[in-house]
């Protein structure tokens, strides 16, 4: 794409941060402070995963959640994962497998220093909510050998046909009742308090309402948000340790207010290099971002005036925009339904229809798939997804390849070329349509 086009896409607004961003930064910093102090304060921690996380339940037992996926992606953004992955591979982990896992193992072997530079506590329990990703199961088997701590294992069945059957729900609820809760009671030394859980679930639903409003704000023209790169920050609190807390409710209320202001002013999304002044292309994005070159990757879109108006990555911790809310009146059933409904736990036909629906509802010009080497749960079948979404939506798809946290698999020139060609094609189609 020519310089004249790219020059007009963004306007630098310095490094001014919104109130919501500052609030989020403060929340996360406090959480890592608590984690670092845990060996002294006696607070206990549970390592767990984003998809199918049981944060409200952990909070009801006063257990501190630690999310190894998030540690890995933050290590990548700090430029640490190349050495962590190299160390894990030296220790015998295959070059073929998930780099989140290898980054996590490498980080642990390097002293378990977390994203804020503080040491993370060893887990008191590994809460293996096996939802939508086979690797999770192996990951915590590996960590169990390293930390010699108990695992609370909860198997969440897959939704091949896009519906939750009573059998699936009952299976998860029984595991919660008979295995997970007793184990958390044992680890925490606290009795299960359902009223407390209900309160966390009530707060979760409030935050979920505002998150959905924010994500759906991208239906406006111009979109006031970037629903892929920018939304990564938006989903941070709800995907990690804060769902079900007053802090999360306040954060999402503040964020919503800011987006309302942006809509009123007709503003586009804020990027690290400034605001997008001219929304040239509206795209839906499937797949996780690359984290090692996150900012550079985002800039490739922003320079072209390309705005992600919807994404599937922001649904790995819950597909709230399809209507699910945590329901305090059915605490265990609602946790089961939440786990069952996370994006990567949905069959491919459901994923295909969701993407096509996004393309239509968000008025997208097309959709892009960032296929990451590490994640078979996301990536296996994405070329088929692309064809099907093109067929259903009538909009063109683009396909790029990178990795989650292994910098060896981010080829900037190659990706930039592909993106530029894709956006040129969108432009040509638009001109052709106008002719």
């Amino acid at each position, binding site marked *: 794409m020519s310089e004249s086009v790219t020059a007009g896409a963004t306007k630098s607004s310095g490094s001014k941060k919104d109130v919501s961003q500052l609030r989020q930064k403060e929340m996360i910093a406090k959480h890592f402070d608590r984690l670092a102090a845990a060996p002294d304060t006696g607070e206990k921690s549970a390592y767990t995963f984003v998809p199918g996380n049981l944060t409200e339940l952990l909070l009801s037992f006063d257990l501190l959640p630690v999310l190894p996926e998030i540690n890995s992606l933050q290590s990548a953004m700090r430029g640490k994962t190349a050495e962590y992955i190299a160390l894990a591979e030296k220790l015998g982990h295959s070059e073929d497998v998930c780099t989140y896992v290898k980054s996590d193992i490498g980080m642990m072997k390097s002293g378990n220093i977390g994203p804020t530079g503080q040491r993370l506590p060893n887990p008191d329990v590994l809460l293996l909510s096996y939802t939508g990703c086979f690797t999770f199961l192996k990951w915590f088997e590996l960590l169990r050998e390293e930390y010699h701590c108990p695992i609370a294992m909860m198997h969440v069945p897959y939704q091949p046909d896009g519906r939750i059957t009573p059998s*699936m729900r009952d*299976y998860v609820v029984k595991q919660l009742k008979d295995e997970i809760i007793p184990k958390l009671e044992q680890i925490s030394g606290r009795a299960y308090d359902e009223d407390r859980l209900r309160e966390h679930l009530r707060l979760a639903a409030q935050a979920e309402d505002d998150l959905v409003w924010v994500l759906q704000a991208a239906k406006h023209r111009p979109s006031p948000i970037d629903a892929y790169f920018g939304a990564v920050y938006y989903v941070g609190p709800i995907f990690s340790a804060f769902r079900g807390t007053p802090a999360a409710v306040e954060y999402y209320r503040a964020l919503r207010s800011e987006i309302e202001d942006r809509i009123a002013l007709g503003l586009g999304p804020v990027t690290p290099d400034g605001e997008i002044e001219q929304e040239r292309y509206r795209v839906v994005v499937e797949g996780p971002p690359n984290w090692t070159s996150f900012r550079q990757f985002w800039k490739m879109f922003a320079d072209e005036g390309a705005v992600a108006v919807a994404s599937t990555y922001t649904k790995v911790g819950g597909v709230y925009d399809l209507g699910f809310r945590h329901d305090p009146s059915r605490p265990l059933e609602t946790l089961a339904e939440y786990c069952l409904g996370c994006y990567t736990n949905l069959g491919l036909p459901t994923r295909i229809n969701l993407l096509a629906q996004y393309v239509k509802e968000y008025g997208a010009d097309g959709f892009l798939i960032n296929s990451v080497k590490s994640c078979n749960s996301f990536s296996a079948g994405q070329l088929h997804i692309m064809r099907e979404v093109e067929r259903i939506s009538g909009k063109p798809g683009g396909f790029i390849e990178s990795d989650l946290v292994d910098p060896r698999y981010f080829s900037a020139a190659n990706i930039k070329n592909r993106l530029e060609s894709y956006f040129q094609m969108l432009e040509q189609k638009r001109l052709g349509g106008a002719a």
Partner: protein
Amino acid sequence: MTPGTGVPPAPVPDLDALVAQADARYRDYRLSSVQSWKARTGGLAIGYMPIYIPAEILHAQGVLPVGLMGARDDLEIIKGDAYYQSYICHIPRSTIELGLNGSLNCLDGVIFPAICDVIRNLSGMWQTLFPGKLVRYLDVPQNFDPQIGGRFYRDELESLIADLAARGARSYDAAALSASIGLYNTLRRIVRDLYELRRGEPWKVPTAELYVMLRSTLVIPVEEAIAVLDRYRTLVADASDRQPLDQARVLLTGSFCEQPPIGLIRTLERSGCYIVDDDFVQIHRWIKSDIPTDGDPLERLVMAFLTDVVASPTRYIDKGEKGAELIERARASGAEGVLFCAPSFCDPALLDQPMAVRAVERAKVAWTAFKYSENTGQFQVIREQAGTFADSIKLWSEA
């Protein structure tokens, strides 16, 4: 006439003829034996992906279970590669290829057991690519409490039974299922005997040959499979012309889904290894002992799955030590070394491997590791590696 069939009795084949027949079935992508069976019986034929399904259920409903294990190195992948990125294993692309080139047209559906994300997602692709066929994702429990995981698994099996019946299969009959369990017990017993025979006299049961025999049984009815393998067992037990060589005894692990090319297995044997235990065609050995044929047969299948199966990398190990079963297998088979032989990009095998290696090292068993794809065509590097490994065992082991 063969009683009850109206078919003249076939001449009893000798070992070479028996293996040649099996090899022809193993090489037949078009599944002629399945087509013949369908023409003869009018029944449904349902494919299944690795590693395990309760084939007894299909059999009891008059359905022919057909094992699909990808392709060999002689299938040119044209369409399949267009569905997968380079970093995905090979078996889904060859399976797609076979589906799209019409090889699997005789199948009325495919069952995709829950073993990894790639096979799981392939089930969704199959739904959209072959909309008229039965596509069944068979979730299996990773919770092994009979009241929890057992209940869920039973629900899955009952749902599978209903799906098959809706396609025209016979409805559920407990007596028929008990009888089918009995037949599959016989098959499993023969396969266990063959593995036992190979452990004792590996020169009589070359793994490349045993492998072809087992693969060939995936596309024929269990009654026929029993007859073929029983005959094979008798013939190899009496094969006095097969003489021992000074080879290292190795256990091969990691090859439970995508299978290596037959050339790779031959290469390992020619490089000085007797494979005395392996993970190939694991469906016949997934359940480790006989399933009782009395009582509620569905419950018997459920309990067998929960309590008596291989400690596969695809299965969560909730109790006991990771790798313990591998070490026990090595001990029981008298293996002097372990070959970690996994397909490239196989998550279950490769994520598990560091834990298995640690267990092997703790047990002070020698090991080496390499990867393959089902279409790997060059074996020289593996031959040198395996040969060196075998030599080191023979030269430096304490025995």
